[in-house]
């Protein structure tokens, strides 16, 4: 790609003629869809026409789930794992391994990717939104690199928040309960002239896990957990529609969240603080044929991490007396493992053009320019800021080539300084048997640029003056793209006049050349270190089922199930590790909500995960968790409200991800008031 070619792409958008025709209305206009899915292909498509498996978690499911944190909601997606790395550090993965910092899903809030380059993951406490701010969550289950690029390697999640016009005028919510939970959030919706806006805030506090599974001894024993959270977020969301054909959406936000994360058995816990801000502007212009959208966003996060590892003599066989012998000129001192003054930043500029070529062919295409920057003395081994420029050119053609047959062809071209230029295509075929039943199949050849951290990480423990002591993890100086080939066959059907929907998917995935940190020899204190490299392969195959039954307004039943068979080994010269148990064979959830009387709702969710070994955590037995909820609507003096009693995990305690994460029963009371 050269510069002139990119400029041609950008400028071509502005040459599109813009006019509004007074065309006659046809039958197609009257029967067109109003509810649509967009994350699958970037085209507005009814669920029946999306060339991928889609899960939509709507407000009814969100409320019935009793979830108090956003990652919990993703347990309602077939094949998705949501786990607690520690009390307030969460991970979400799908079809992939489960490290402390999972990064193979593209998570977006209103279309803004919230991936943090510095940790190669999503910081769920920094989203800036509360559960109550969500309108719905759209999840594409399966590789979506052909639409959203590298990060959508195993799927894409778009969290859509309530619009400025949709929100009540004033909304206040509070949550109190177990683990010293105190939350308060509010949202005000107003307008200035023709500009509609909401301002919202969120404060959260809790003390994390109550205790460890097995108390440990030591100078700072971990009998009592201290992985607490203190979070404050502020957000402004606005909407301006200057003309019938123009819409401008803006979102600004900032926040500060501090979590404590477990350090080691010696030192206990340390603070990790994220100071973040973001700005997102999107302008959509309706054309006579299609629309054009220009969007820009910027995410900024500053990280302070005050990890104190301990005295060198505590961490190694060295004694205070032998330290100067091993390291001439040095004395025993407290070692730091911090990310002090860490920086993580993303700039994203995107143009997208959607139009119909004819009645049978629709096209969306666009281009992205993105810059990721990060800085961390501890993680990179130097004080400089590193950056990566990425260019993307994407397109999706929807071809209605025969009555009831639709083909979708997607292509994403990416270019960056790490792996050069590569392509991620997808071909999909949907056959609409009739208005209630659809069959689909697709094949995807996705590629992913390795995370910046896995390419440039060079972490070592040093004395305060920078003298190296021990290399922890480094890189080989080169990186290749990760690859995934996916074959999917799906069925989507509605029964009982639409009361029951069934979504079935069979899949086979081949993942090749994934990055992993391999053991390596080092000329340092312990003679070893880990090195990021490509070479991890595995195969997944399995099935996912999603059933939703809503016979009336009193009942809602939603069942999700995934069967997964993973085959692969973590390469190691001496002892390759079988990762066949790094995904659960069976993962299911069942949500039931019932309204016995007007204003009352009873709901419960059962989650079951078969035994597995968390990649970054421990081997755990099968987990069964039951959450219950009772809700009562309230009304007085122009206010409407809801009082909820939530019980999380009312059955036996279980180990969540790490043997130290002992999940006990938690009880919460949530009170919400809206003023219309």
């Amino acid at each position, binding site marked *: 790609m050269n510069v002139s070619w990119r400029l041609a792409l950008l400028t071509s958008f502005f040459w599109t003629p813009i006019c509004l025709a007074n065309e006659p209305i046809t039958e197609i206009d009257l029967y067109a869809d109003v509810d649509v899915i967009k994350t699958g292909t970037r085209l507005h498509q009814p669920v029946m026409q999306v060339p991928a498996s889609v899960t939509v978690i709507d407000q009814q499911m969100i409320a019935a789930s009793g979830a108090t944190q956003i990652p919990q909601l993703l347990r309602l997606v077939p094949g998705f794992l949501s786990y607690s790395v520690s009390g307030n550090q969460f991970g979400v993965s799908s079809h992939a391994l489960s490290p402390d910092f999972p990064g193979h899903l593209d998570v977006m809030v209103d279309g803004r990717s919230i991936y943090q380059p510095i940790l190669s993951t999503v910081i769920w406490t920094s989203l800036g939104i509360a559960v109550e701010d969500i309108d719905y969550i759209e999840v594409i289950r399966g590789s979506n690199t052909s639409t959203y690029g590298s990060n959508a390697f195993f799927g894409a999640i778009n969290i859509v928040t309530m619009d400025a016009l*949709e929100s009540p005028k004033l909304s206040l919510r509070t949550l109190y309960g177990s683990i010293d939970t105190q939350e308060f959030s509010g949202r005000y919706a107003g307008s200035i002239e023709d500009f509609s806006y909401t301002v919202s805030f969120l404060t959260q506090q809790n003390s994390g896990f109550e205790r460890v599974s097995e108390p440990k001894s030591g100078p700072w024993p971990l009998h009592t957990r201290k992985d607490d959270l203190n979070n404050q977020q502020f957000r402004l969301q606005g909407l301006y*529609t200057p003309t019938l054909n123009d819409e401008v959406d803006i979102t600004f936000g900032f926040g500060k969240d501090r979590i404590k994360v477990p350090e080691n058995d010696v030192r206990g816990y340390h603070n990790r603080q994220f100071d973040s801000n973001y700005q997102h502007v999107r302008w959509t212009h309706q054309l006579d044929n299609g629309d054009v959208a220009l969007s820009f966003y910027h995410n900024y996060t500053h990280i302070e991490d005050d990890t104190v590892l301990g005295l060198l003599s505590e961490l190694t066989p060295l004694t205070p007396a032998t330290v100067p012998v091993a390291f001439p000129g040095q004395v025993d001192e407290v070692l730091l493992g911090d990310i002090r003054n860490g920086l993580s930043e993303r700039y994203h500029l995107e143009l997208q053009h959607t139009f119909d070529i004819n009645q049978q062919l629709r096209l969306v295409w666009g281009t992205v320019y993105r810059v990721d920057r990060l800085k961390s003395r501890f993680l990179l081994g130097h004080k400089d800021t590193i950056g990566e420029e990425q260019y993307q050119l994407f397109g999706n053609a929807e071809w209605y080539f*025969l009555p009831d047959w639709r083909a979708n062809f997607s292509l994403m071209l990416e270019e960056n300084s790490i792996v050069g230029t590569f392509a991620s295509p997808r071909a999909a075929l949907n056959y609409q048997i*009739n*208005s209630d039943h659809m069959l689909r*199949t697709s094949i995807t050849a996705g590629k992913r640029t390795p995370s910046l951290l896995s390419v440039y990480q060079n972490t070592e423990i040093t004395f305060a003056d920078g003298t190296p002591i021990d290399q922890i993890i480094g890189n080989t100086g080169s990186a290749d793209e990760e690859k995934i080939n996916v074959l999917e066959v799906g069925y989507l059907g509605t029964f009982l006049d639409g009361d029951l929907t069934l979504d079935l998917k069979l899949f086979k995935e081949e993942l090749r050349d994934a990055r992993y940190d391999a053991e390596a020899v080092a000329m340092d204190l312990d003679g070893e270190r880990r090195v990021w490299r490509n070479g991890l392969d595995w195969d997944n195959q399995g099935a996912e089922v999603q059933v939703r039954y809503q016979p009336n307004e009193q009942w809602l039943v939603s069942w999700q199930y995934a069967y997964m068979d993973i085959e692969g080994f973590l390469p190691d010269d001496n002892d390759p590790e079988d990762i066949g148990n790094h995904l659960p064979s069976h993962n299911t959830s069942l949500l039931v909500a019932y309204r016995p009387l007007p204003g009352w709702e009873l709901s419960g969710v059962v989650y079951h995960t078969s035994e597995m070994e968390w990649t970054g955590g421990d081997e755990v037995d099968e987990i069964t968790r039951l959450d219950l909820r009772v809700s009562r609507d309230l009304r007085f003096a122009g206010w409407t409200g809801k009082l909820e009693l939530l019980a999380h995990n009312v059955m036996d305690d279980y180990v969540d991800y790490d043997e130290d994460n002992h999940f006990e029963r938690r009880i919460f009371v949530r009170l919400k008031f809206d003023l219309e």
Partner: protein
Amino acid sequence: MRIIKTYIACLITLSLMLCAPLVQAGSDIVLLLSSDALPYREVEQGIRVALVERKDRLTISSLTLDSLLKGEKTLPADHRVLVTIGTRATRHALQENISKSIYASFVTASGLLREISSEKGFPDALKGAVVLDQPAKRIVTLAKLINPHAQKLGTVVNGSAANRLEEFEQVVKKEGLELMAAKLFEGSNPIADLKRIFAHSDVFLVIPDKARFNSKIAKWILFLSYRHRVPVIGYSQKYTEAGALISIFSTPRQVGQDTGERLLGYVSAPKQRSSAVRLQYPRYFSLSVNDKVAESLGLKVDNEAHLKERMRGEHGARIEDGVDLVLEVVGK
């Protein structure tokens, strides 16, 4: 590579399944479908069922416009009526003058008007039509039923649906109500206009326009409906599912059934040349209620069957029959 090979094999098998023999026969009534898509086939099905149920000895055949254009099928020369299903088929039949007796179905009134107001003058071949639009009278009756205290009804239209505004204004006035309407143009601020309408309306009526406009404006309408607690009457099942309190519409099958029944009358007594063509509203219609929206708006709405019963009771057979548009053809 194994996945790709398996995939290609499946695709080839699937392609072979698509090849099917094409059949053609002469008949009294020929149905010309705009395409082979499901809604057109459902209209066809409705027509066939209506004709079969009456046990008439009419022979019926059908073909799609594409098969006609590609020469895969031909129009039987001895047919008595050509029923065009959908805008595309109707446009082709009228423009190319392929039949002496055309009956249009599953088109909108504005779409048909556009076709017959072409430079060639009014096509003599057009003998009648069943349009998709719901009569204003029917919609206003429904509005009064879901909110008996309603005084003001609101709506917005874009360029394409603006010609229906007058019809609504007349009906609303006859019912002793007031219509709050705004015409949205390219330079309009849609939210500002909608806010103004919603602030003064008791029920909001969605008059369907071009899909692009409908889809864009639906979001704002439904948001403001919730904010102002004003019920919305939509025009399709999908509009109800998206958040309208209720929608009123005719399904393709209902349009087909109505067309079939009217065809019987026409075939048994074909009209002579006259100065008017009847564009008939669909006799049969459906209602769909969104109970969740009703609850959030604090409204108690009868179920669909009961509502239709009440519409009949209060306004007699006219609600079922609709009120036909009689198109006076200039220069005919």
